[in-house]
């Protein structure tokens, strides 16, 4: 079992700064998800950890060993790729054994490991097939198997599920989670899918433009996003953002339009804030209470339904709050139509407040 840590990592492609002074510590056995939009540098970081890209500056440690300039094969990692990257001319067995043969392992040991990996992943019947004769899900299992047989302490996943359809994606997601529970390896998992991130991760690192914006447990990331970007990126449907300003002696009143919202119970961050500064209040649609439930909330308002999106289990309703677009979630059984008046309410204690200029959490 091994820790992975990245120290002051910098990577430039010519004049383009892809990674800027990154620091990251991953304890043994953690499942860390690197989450971000494309171009955020998350895959690049993973490739640096794997040793597939030369870093410009900084160090990478795996199990306290400086591996910044080691060969990928010497870093004790296994890696799974988005496009599976199976060697097309080899059978499944050939794919699984390729790395082991390169490492000059004894034949018996290779057989043993393949057998074990195949049984874990339930791909025994496929061993003699070529990748082209496999389905997408099967291919990805083989790709995971290829990492598995290496018997390494760190697994790297580079968007492994992106090429699969929704149902397979869900199945394999669960399987990866089981795998982690069983093997207790350190796993670093790159994805742009927040559901994967939330469901799999022990901790999530949200990345954008080559830096980590927030590194924390899914729970914290969801409930206390460190800045507006993270708040908007995590959660579906997206968080409502209300523009306004702070007031009151303690700067604990949020004013937007003609509304004054007292932020009672809100846990302020250590960021400085002042009265009269402009701020943004973020309210997640699923944290908005409707009709009867709304009564109990500190903030209530009667709004007009503008658009209804039924989603089965629940229904997303578009309306306007304080002259700004505002979405909220209702029971799937609720029957509303545009023009209806609905009473809504939310608790500012559970909302998020951001500085308009720095976009940091207040």
């Amino acid at each position, binding site marked *: 079992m091994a820790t992975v840590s990245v120290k002051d990592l910098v990577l430039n492609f010519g004049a383009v700064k892809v990674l800027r002074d990154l620091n990251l510590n991953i304890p043994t056995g953690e499942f860390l998800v690197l989450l971000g939009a494309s171009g955020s540098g998350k895959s690049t970081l993973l*490739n640096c950890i*794997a040793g*597939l890209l030369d870093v410009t500056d900084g160090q990478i440690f795996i199990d306290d060993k400086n591996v910044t300039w080691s060969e990928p*094969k010497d870093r004790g990692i296994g890696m799974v*790729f988005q*496009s599976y*990257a199976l060697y097309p001319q080899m059978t499944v067995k050939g794919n699984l054994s390729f*790395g082991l043969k*390169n490492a000059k392992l004894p034949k018996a040991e290779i057989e043993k490991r393949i057998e074990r990996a195949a049984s874990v992943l339930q791909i025994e019947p496929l061993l003699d097939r070529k990748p082209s004769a496999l389905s997408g899900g099967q291919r990805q299992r083989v790709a995971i198997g290829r990492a598995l047989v290496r018997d390494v302490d760190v697994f790297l996943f580079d968007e492994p599920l992106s090429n699969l359809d929704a149902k397979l994606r869900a199945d394999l997601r669960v399987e990866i989670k089981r795998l982690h529970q069983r093997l207790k390896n350190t796993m670093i998992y790159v994805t742009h899918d927040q559901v994967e991130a939330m469901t799999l991760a022990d901790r999530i690192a949200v990345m954008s433009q080559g830096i980590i914006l927030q590194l924390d447990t899914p729970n914290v990331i969801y409930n206390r996003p460190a800045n507006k970007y993270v708040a908007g990126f995590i959660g579906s449907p997206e968080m409502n953002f209300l523009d306004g300003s702070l007031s009151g002696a303690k700067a604990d009143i949020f004013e937007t339009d003609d509304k004054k919202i007292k932020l009672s119970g809100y846990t302020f961050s250590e960021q400085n804030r002042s009265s009269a500064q402009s701020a943004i209040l973020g309210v997640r649609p699923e944290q908005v209470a409707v009709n009867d439930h709304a009564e109990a909330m500190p903030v209530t308002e009667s709004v007009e339904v503008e658009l209804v999106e039924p989603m089965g289990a629940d229904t997303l309703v578009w309306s306007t709050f304080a002259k700004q677009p505002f979405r909220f979630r209702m029971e799937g059984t609720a029957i509303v139509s545009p023009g209806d008046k609905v009473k809504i309410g939310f608790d500012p204690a559970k909302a998020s407040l951001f500085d308009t200029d720095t976009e940091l959490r207040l």
Partner: protein
Amino acid sequence: MADTILNPVAEARGPRPKKAFSRANIFIYGTLLLVSVYYLLPLYVMIVTSFKGMPEIRLGNVFGPPLEPTFQPWVKAWAEACTGINCDGLSRGFSNSVKILIPSVTLSILIASVNGYALANWKFKGSETFFTILIIGAFIPYQTMLYPIVIMLREIKLMGSIWGLVLVHTVFGMPILTLLFRNYFTSIPDELFKAARVDGAGFWGIYFKIMLPMSLPIIVVAIILQVTGIWNDFLFGVIYTKPDTYPMTVQLNNIVNSVQGVKEYNVNMAATLLTGLVPLVIYFISGKLFVRGIAAGAVKG
């Protein structure tokens, strides 16, 4: 994706015209047939001429079918035509041509594929500059390089040996072949290469075990280009070797290019067709693989 590289679509992809005798169809086949006439006309002239006797050729109509067909020109071209004092036609150089062709094609493809692989997957500082120089080198007329190469071969003591010639073919085939292989390897998903690195394969391991087995289509293209070029080469063959290893084209040149004396056009044509047979046979055999290979090597990148 990896499997699309191995099996790129070689089937027609445009929409299929509907009826057999639709206006579009008549246009398409009409144009193709008309253009085919342009392409086949010289072949027709060569073939009919090669079956005519010299008196008939002197009469003049190049398109007329042979009035008294004769195989004599073919026999002569292959086995009797004299080049200097040796009167055994093209057959004399055939085995030499093969002996030059095989190592030249093999070595040039081997080196160009390694170049392309290094350029696509293992870029290093300056690698693109060397490649750019190589591409510009494709535009240098061979003849202007004759003397510098003579001097170079002299210095490495390969002047006059078949290996010198192989080297020259490798050098002059390098630009285009490297371009093709580089494009091809660039089109192979990067992740495959990365996976192999993680699996502990090094530069040569990835080349031989992963890349080369995937390169059949582009190798076919390279073979076609090189076989055509090397088989038809005359200049290098004659300068950098000796009479007992002269390729077939030297005989072809001697048959066709005699400045003084009678030109036996029928034998010339037969000799040309005979010489062209080897590349032609390779075109036919490779068939669809050729298009598929070009699709993979020239299209992407």
